[in-house]
């Protein structure tokens, strides 16, 4: 019984480590904050789907690869300009769970209307 409990604990540790490893490519932590790097270019964001946890502070670190873009997520009440050649940080704490679309709100050309993405906030 005791061995079984240890085995379960080891499995949980392995799974958590694996998930953390998968997400490390674009998420890191600093003082308890999630930091998520987001690139913007005509006419897409990467990643275009961002998953957050309700109540957990997060910093979106934006980099534009070409020109001025914008980031607006009205459902969460956040927005930022994304000028080129610098990193722009947007810090916030998601206060509600749900799916919230975001879009570029700086007119950037022919595909501007399709430059969109989604933030998913889990409980």
């Amino acid at each position: 019984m005791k061995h079984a409990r240890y085995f379960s604990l080891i499995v949980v540790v392995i799974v958590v480590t694996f998930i953390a490893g998968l997400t490390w490519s674009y998420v890191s932590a600093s003082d308890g904050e999630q930091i998520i790097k987001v690139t913007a270019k005509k006419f897409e964001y990467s990643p275009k789907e961002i998953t957050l946890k309700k109540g957990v502070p997060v910093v979106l670190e934006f980099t534009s690869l070409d020109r001025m873009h914008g980031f607006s997520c009205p459902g969460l009440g956040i927005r930022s300009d994304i000028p080129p050649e610098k990193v722009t940080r947007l810090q916030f704490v998601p206060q509600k769970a749900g799916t919230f679309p975001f879009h570029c709100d700086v007119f950037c050309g022919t595909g501007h209307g399709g430059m969109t993405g989604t933030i998913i906030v889990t409980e």
Partner: protein
Amino acid sequence: MKIDRRDFLKLAGIGGVVFASGLGGWGSAARAKPPGEEDFFFVQLSDTHWGFTGPAINPDAAGTLKKAVVAVNRLKHQPDFVMFTGDLTHVTDDDNERRKRMAAVRDIISELKVKNVKFMPGEHDAGLDEAAAFKEFFGVTHYTFDHKGVKFIVLDNVSDPTSSIGATQLEWLSAQLKQLPKDARIVVFTHRPLFDLYPEWDWYTRDGAKALELLMPYQNVTVFYGHIHQENHHTTKQIAHHAAKGLMLPLPAPGSAPKNAPIPWDPAAPYKGMGFREVEAKVKPVQYALTELPVMGE
């Protein structure tokens, strides 16, 4: 311009929204009135998006605006002026192509019988070059004009790609308004809505609330705008806002679809969702009777 009651009823029956409470007073309205108290008509055309191609959306992309021009020319009563509320051209990243499109749309519009034609840009015209090409073809992007006792104010909320009017233009607006009495008849033309219609689809003006704050002390303010390619009516306190249909690609109602992608062409109902608007400006009481007309007109 003389219009009898029968004409007015016909106008009201076309299917548009009519904000008229004084049918009984129409007979007197037709009589000659002193300057500043005359009723008059103007036509609003919007979002012609010249240069757009997409047969699934509009297989007559090269013909729709031309048909609308013919329809306006066929109106029984020619309007005092025609106002284009932006997005004359569809966006292109190529500066030369943008100018070609503006030249083409200018030539088509020159076929209007009415020569008093006013313009303003949409973000497709002006958002990539801060209206440089637009100014070459159509002139300044914000201005005022007076017509039969109405102060018309054209606001530019697109040349700044951040969907803003900007501090300088807001100061100019404030200075214009300070010259007017609080009961002045004011019509504002913009491309984007000044209020937050649906920010998720970029259907708003970032500093539109500041413009509305400046307009709010005035009793008779009406806003006509484009951008959303459909009829929409809204009020912010006493200020009425009326969006017009476009003449190229209909868009879904705010929030009614996952994305604001154009509505596909319906072969059973060609040009559905497109059209233009006739506005009758009445003096006493101050009213704007709107008639929504299809691309082919009456």
